[in-house]
């Protein structure tokens, strides 16, 4: 970790690696909330960071393969007014088509439209999974989502927003 302003684009502000275990999420989220509030002096960003970190980590843990290489990586980078939160994981390959479709659908709508659409879907599927998380990251977290597929089945979900 480094003080804000001392970094170069190649050096993240925060870089954490840990096993995909649900009980770590609360602690990691609260650290990221504290980090953003302290570093950027804005509670708004801290709240948005909490949503982004919670939901990206929940997805990563839920769909992780759980093998020896399943370690998660959380990275926070800042370039000027832009801030990026990214989580790298190794998901079950059967989950990827659903994830790609969800990201495409969200990108084709305004954040609010995507969030309301996710609520309508949840209401129409009372026995299904909530599947609100990604739309929430975009709308409540005020970020844009992207996915990179890396070697070895690893993916990186990146949420990009602004500091203010």
């Amino acid at each position: 970790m480094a003080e804000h302003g001392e970094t170069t684009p190649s050096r993240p502000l925060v870089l954490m690696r840990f096993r995909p275990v649900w009980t770590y999420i609360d602690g990691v989220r609260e650290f990221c909330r504290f980090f953003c509030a302290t570093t950027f002096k804005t509670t708004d960003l801290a709240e948005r960071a909490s949503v982004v970190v919670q939901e990206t980590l929940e997805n990563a843990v839920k769909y992780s393969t759980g093998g020896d290489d399943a370690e998660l990586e959380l990275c926070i980078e800042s370039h000027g007014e832009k801030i990026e939160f990214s989580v790298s994981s190794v998901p079950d390959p059967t989950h990827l088509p659903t994830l790609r479709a969800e990201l495409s659908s969200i990108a084709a709508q305004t954040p609010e439209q995507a969030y309301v659409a996710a609520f309508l879907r949840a209401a129409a599927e009372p026995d299904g999974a909530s599947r609100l998380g990604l739309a929430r990251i975009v709308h409540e977290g005020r970020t844009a989502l992207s996915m990179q597929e890396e070697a070895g089945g690893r993916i990186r979900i990146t949420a990009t927003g602004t500091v203010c």
Partner: protein
Amino acid sequence: MLNTSSLRPPDVANVEVRLSPEGITLLGSITTKEPDRSLGAFFRTVHDAALRSGLTELRVDVRGLGFVNSSAIRLFIDWAIWVSQPARTSYRLRFVRNPNVTWQRVSFPAIAQLAAEHVVIDDGR
């Protein structure tokens, strides 16, 4: 009035559930993996009790819920759908929120859209 004598709030980490004749108050945060199994099941028993009691309105005060995950937001969506089920004598579900809490400000208008005739959003003071 809600008959609370038979209602037993679940023991869920980081969240406190308070019962009153008007409804329930939630305090803390909800970030458990499957809140539908604990809190969701409890909300259903409260809903059923409200129907049995013939309530016209039930208050769900979430002002003290500082943070929730999307699985918890799903619980409030489900509740809004329950009260809007056709062919049942139902009650009005009043969510008392704090609009200064981001998730509450952002999520409850979308929930109200799902069941506009049965859900009221109250910016409690």
